[in-house]
């Protein structure tokens, strides 16, 4: 018996259409692209040189020459924000990457295996969690020397238990569902089930946690730079700029406002992007223009 069916082909254009009609994805996408572009442009060109100190021009208010004003060493804030974008974004992004890359598999493993594996993984997590993050980061950078790279590693390590916990909690809620039982009855092993059924169902959770951790990563980098263990001067970073501005809030508010805005806009953009991706990935929102 041969049956002829009119089988519709899968349509990836659908997802693209969906992506570019999704308002939060689009807004987040544009913001993220702009921020990334600014960071890239700073490699080739900035309005002023951020390494030259011109004391005569210190703490100037925003003007046509210096759009965002100057800091207490006479450096142009706009230029510093552009260059700082590189460090801040790189540190936060890689730190989230490390946390996700190691934490999510660990959490998924703990949920899939249960028993002694779960116990061991989660207790190790607790151990890392139990240390005050900033203190341990200071310890790590004290041992391996200060610098952006060590800051990334230190912040990344403290992201691992966060993602492991979220992944495990999410996965534990998926495992007892009937469709997992159906997949097992179809002969699929734990790894395959985790990849095909568990992770796609907790991806929203992880994306939201990812954007939160990204914002925290920028702040953590700022904290490390403040105590002199993160980005080394004269390289600016958003966090450093904020802390420099702290004591001059009344005299030169622009020194705090503009780097702060940069952080807010970046985090907002990534949040919207994450929200949009989660929306697009959710089949229930598809085909409902």
């Amino acid at each position: 018996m041969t049956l002829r069916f009119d089988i519709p082909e899968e349509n990836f254009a659908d997802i693209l259409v969906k992506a570019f009609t999704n308002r939060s994805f689009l807004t987040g996408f544009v913001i993220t692209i702009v921020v990334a572009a600014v960071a890239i442009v700073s490699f080739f060109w900035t309005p002023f040189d951020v390494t030259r100190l011109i004391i005569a021009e210190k703490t100037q208010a925003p003007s046509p020459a210096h759009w965002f004003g100057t800091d207490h060493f006479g450096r142009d804030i706009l230029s510093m924000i552009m260059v700082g974008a590189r460090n801040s974004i790189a540190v936060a992004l890689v730190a989230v990457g490390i946390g996700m890359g190691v934490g999510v598999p660990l959490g998924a493993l703990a949920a899939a295996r249960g028993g002694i594996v779960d116990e061991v993984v989660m207790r190790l997590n607790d151990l890392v969690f139990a240390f005050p993050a900033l203190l341990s980061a200071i310890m790590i950078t004290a041992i391996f020397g200060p610098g952006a790279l060590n800051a990334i590693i230190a912040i990344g390590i403290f992201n691992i238990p966060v993602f492991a916990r979220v992944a495990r909690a999410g996965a534990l809620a998926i495992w007892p569902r009937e469709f997992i039982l159906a997949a097992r009855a179809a002969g699929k092993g734990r790894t395959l089930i985790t990849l095909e059924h568990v992770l796609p169902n907790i991806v929203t959770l992880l994306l939201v946690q990812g954007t939160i951790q990204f914002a925290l990563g920028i702040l953590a980098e700022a904290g490390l730079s403040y105590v002199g263990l993160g980005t080394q001067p004269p390289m600016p970073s958003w966090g450093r700029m904020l802390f420099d501005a702290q004591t001059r809030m009344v005299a030169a508010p622009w020194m705090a406002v503009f780097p702060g805005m940069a952080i807010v806009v970046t985090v907002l953009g990534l949040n919207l992007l994450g929200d949009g991706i989660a929306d697009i990935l959710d089949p229930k929102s598809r085909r409902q223009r």
Partner: protein
Amino acid sequence: MSLLEIEKLSLTIGDTPILRDVELSVAPGEVMGLVGESGSGKSITALTVMRLLPWAARATGHVTFDGIDILAASEDQMCALRGDDIGMVFQEPMTALNPVKTIGEQVAEGIRWHTRASRADAEDRARKMLDRVGLPAAQFPLSRYPHELSGGQRQRVVIAIACALKPKLLIADEPTTALDVVLQAQILDLLRDLVAENRMGLLLISHDLAVVTEMAERITILRHGEVMEAGDTARTLSEQLHPYTRQLAQASTHVPARPRTHAVGQDNPLLQVAKPLLQVDSVTRDYPGRRKSLLKRAAPIRAVDDVSFSIDPGQSVALVGRSGCGKSTLARMVLALDGPTSGTIRFRGQVITGKSEAELKPARRDMQVVFQDPYGSFDPRQKVEKLVGEPLHVLENKPTNTERREMVAKALHEVGLSPRDMDKYPHEFSGGQRQRLSIARAIITRPKLVVADEPVSALDVSIRAQILDLFAELNQKLGVAYLFITHDLTVARAITDQVMIMHDGKIVERGRTSEVLDHPQSEAAKALVAAAPDLHRAIARRLQEQG
């Protein structure tokens, strides 16, 4: 004069009309049955009477309860009515109680709130009420928590809460749907007694015609938010003047047409020499007991106790028992999803117990499963093509993408769905369609055995009839054997040749379906048969009562 009078009730949520010109009345001491399929507006009607509607709902018409215009009443007036003069019993006893409060507190809560009685007085009344619903003080002190009770016991607590202040009207929304037939009969008896004692009006909402016929003097049949037919229960259902009434009644007692070729397994010499497809030998499954302290555990709980049986190729066997009797545990072991504590299971002559997942692959090809919940048994993130094609994973030669799409298309066609559906997601299907998807997934590898765990108990009667037909048709066409797990005897009667009755982890009776159901021998079987609601019997009894 009626206690509750609903006149020309129309309701919209946003722009969607939910109810249209619904008319209904309940007199004191009367049981009114409200019947309809899911989405017909039964529960919304009940919630309108309680004024517990969603914010976006707009209701017009008149709802009069005991002289009060419900739709115009203030929120304070409604708060005084709810739980005092109108009580409500919900479907799901597992979630209707607050898990962190004792049953005593929960029953006393309403009494204290409405009567301003002291704690001691309220607890005293709560105690009396719990005694009344069959939860005596010796076993069920007020200090018990909901998780310490079974489903039927929890539903008794819910009824105690609803009836604690002797309401004039009780609304019971599918009060027994989550319970097995024996518990259902007990709860219905209790409700009937409470109605008689207090001359309480009862609005009984159910999708089960047989249950309503046993309980209600009058019946209202709802469909798409409109009343199709209303009137005396016995007359309405015996005359079946309205086409929809006829359709519902027929669907409730539907038996798929199937030639009894496999029914003669024992008598047919050809089949007798054939090796059994599935052979279960003295299988036992213990679950570790509750941890009492760091080192001490309670005695293990024996879920399945020394069970042996076999199923021949193409045979359709029902496994019937009350909830918690071990049916599902047994099914999981048959499917090699759970290992027995002792005993062996053979499938096609090969032992499948204690094997690794890789060794099980050949067996997995030939056995599949259909679950009860059409909503929970599909990954919401994947398309139908992947979901229905999932079992193809165990094939020796993995099909190419095109082959896979062909096979999925064919399976969808066989269960009455369109091949176009394969690019949809599960949420785009109705409950009945999802159960068809579930069956398509189960037959795609052409298995020899399908284990179906309560496959129709979550479905409406008309859809249930269609799915039973589909099972019967596939049994015949593909020669697939079924192990049908159910607590519903009508389902067993409709679809199976043999029936096994399970009780407390043991199989206590086995035989031809019709023989066991007509002449049950064991206590457990007798209890199940006696408790099972039967539409024809119920109508006959009502007609007889009326002379």
